């Protein structure tokens, strides 16, 4: 037992024994915290956002539109914001899988196994985001436009009703054999993360489209869509909830456009 661990009360250590996914939960929470804080920040100078000198003043809120073609927002910031949103929205539903992976790893590798899985999972979303943002930017899809966001929400609602969506949701539960140690163990965790990530993108790509374009409604949409993802992946017979999710997304579109 390490010196640090020996000073942690047994009650807390027991909780960590049972919930080795705590580190990934912390990553998700931190991502939410950053996004909420930045969302609430007032107008700032472009320099603070890392933009080039001479750019005009804009808001942090505006900066958070990953597809914004605004010249003041560099590519790295857009992609970074996309990854923050992905971590905040996709990691909560992955926690049971991270727990499963950690519990099936050697004790000393539990943390490493979970983080390797998450890096691989987020890597798949990174590539998807790269393609999505590049296409949206190239076609000058306007960010923060409620009509556009509403349209892609309807696309997401339609995707909810497809067989492909349900298949992808179920594929999120697929496991892989995990070698216990060495590079094979790391490769196994990475393979698990990529496999899970591909199923996750298959299930949730349409739900993440609005996030690339959302303006003032971003936090509202993030909360709603995260709840949908967690319910579909985590609840008993979650695939049946896709039929509920579709009208909920249509309702959200109406609220956004009317309200």
């Amino acid at each position, binding site marked *: 037992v390490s010196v640090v661990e020996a000073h942690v009360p047994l009650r807390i250590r027991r909780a960590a024994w049972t919930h080795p996914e705590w580190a990934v939960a912390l990553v998700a929470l931190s991502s939410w915290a950053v996004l909420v804080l930045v969302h609430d920040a007032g107008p700032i100078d472009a320099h603070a956002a890392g933009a080039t000198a001479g750019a005009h003043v804009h808001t942090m809120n505006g900066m958070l539109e990953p597809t914004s073609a605004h010249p003041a927002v560099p590519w790295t910031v857009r992609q970074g914001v996309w990854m923050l949103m992905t971590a905040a929205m996709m990691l909560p539903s992955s926690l049971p899988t991270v727990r499963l992976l950690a519990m*099936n790893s050697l004790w000393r590798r539990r943390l490493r196994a979970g983080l390797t899985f998450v890096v691989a999972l987020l890597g798949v979303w990174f590539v998807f985001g790269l393609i999505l943002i590049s296409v949206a930017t190239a076609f000058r899809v306007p960010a923060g436009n409620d009509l556009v966001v509403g349209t892609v929400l309807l696309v997401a609602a339609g995707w909810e009703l497809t067989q492909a969506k349900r298949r992808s949701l179920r594929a999120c539960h697929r496991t892989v054999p995990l070698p216990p140690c060495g590079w094979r163990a790391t490769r196994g965790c990475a393979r698990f993360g990529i496999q899970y990530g591909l199923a996750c993108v298959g299930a949730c790509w349409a739900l993440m489209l609005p996030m690339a374009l959302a303006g003032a409604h971003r936090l509202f949409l993030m909360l709603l869509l995260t709840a949908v993802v967690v319910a579909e992946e985590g609840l008993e017979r979650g695939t049946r909830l896709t039929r509920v999710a579709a009208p909920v997304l249509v309702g959200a579109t109406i609220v956004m456009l009317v309200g």
Partner: protein
Amino acid sequence: VTEPYVRQDIWTLEATPWNSLAMAYALAVREMQARPASDPTSWVYQASVHATPDPQDRDDWRDQCQHNSWFFLPWHRMYLYWFERIVRAIVQTLEDVDDSTKDTWALPYWDYDRGGTNALPPAFREAQLPNGDDNPLRTDERNPSINAGGGLPGLATSAQNALAEMSFSEPLMAGVPSGFGGPITGWHHFAENGTTTPGELERTPHNDVHGLVGGGGFMSRFETAPLDPVFWLHHANIDRLWALWTGSFAGENPLAAAWLDRVFHFHDEGGQDVTMTPGDVLDVAADLGYRYADMPALVVQPEAVMPPSPPPPEHPAELVGATDTPLELSGDAATVQLSISPPSGPLRALAAEEPNRVYLNVEDIEAERNPGISYAVYVNVPDDDADAANDVHYAGNVSFFGVEQAQDVDRDHSGGRGSLRYAFDISDLVKRLMAEHLWDPERMRVMFVPLRVEAPPGVAAAEAATPPVRVGRVSLFYR
């Protein structure tokens, strides 16, 4: 007070295949088979209650079978109860059935573990009924050896390990066996968690008998198993073993509302919707009006049957060793070796000298289809031990009922988890091996030995190729 119906051991009835009870069953099955699939009392519909060939056909009644779950035993008890009522109602309308049988007909059971009863009951093997009609109890969608009178292997039919288990259910925890009746799950059993394993009784004899009788045919698969008329007798035996566990073995069913109050839908003999919960079916005589012919009363104190052992610790089990490459099983014996690391988690933190429990896991089991055989799993069989079936090293069986559905992403039932998993409590076995100096943490060996249906009397064993099965990992957990 009405006398309960008596479910009889089919092997204790008249030696000729066509005793009145089997004959009435055959005629009722034929009637059900003639009914349209849309009729809830038809043969095809009743099979689809278990699982449907087309995943789109599921509803509140169909595609409902519960496996790898603490609902396994109560759901199948309900399923059999309503099926039995449908058959009895038909029997009571049949002209060729005598009045006594009409009044008393109850589903018989097949106790394959009584000595000399491990072959398929004769009425299920006959090609024809006494009047020359095709026998509806016979299907060619079975292992040819079992249809020819071959016997099930003893290790596949024994409920000894299951009946010795004291806990009905365990919460889902990686590496930890799930108890007598299966793990605590919701409806969505296969997909809930990659660690779900069947309960002891579901594993053996239930899963083994499905695979071995089916041989790749009806009984091997969720969606076709109830199409074989012997399915219902097999499950009556599993239901009897549950009643035996709660009776003679003083096993205790769960008390949780999540288990007791779970609602399941069925159809009665009139085709009307009915609902039931596990709490409604705990006492078969009082709640459901039947009993089993062979149900010994409690003859010994439970402590004498199962010496009380301290409950397992609450902390999670810790992986201490695993294979790092998959193993393919194609019908031959195979051995894998793994080395065990010293525990570095709770056992170390609690300064435990020895693990309280040792669990062997066989994980990520995949196959295109059920190979129709089981594999007996042994630990540290000495190299010079010529007897592969040395019970001293026996851990349990691995079989493959449900392996196709586990991979089916079109079904909620399987959830697309992709594989099966088995967990065995080998604590006593390891203690014994340690005492005999046969336990080397650097070199633990796990051997898989195929279990097949014995060749029928006077028939040479068939040498058919066995479809392969892939075992992703063999692992050891300490707790």
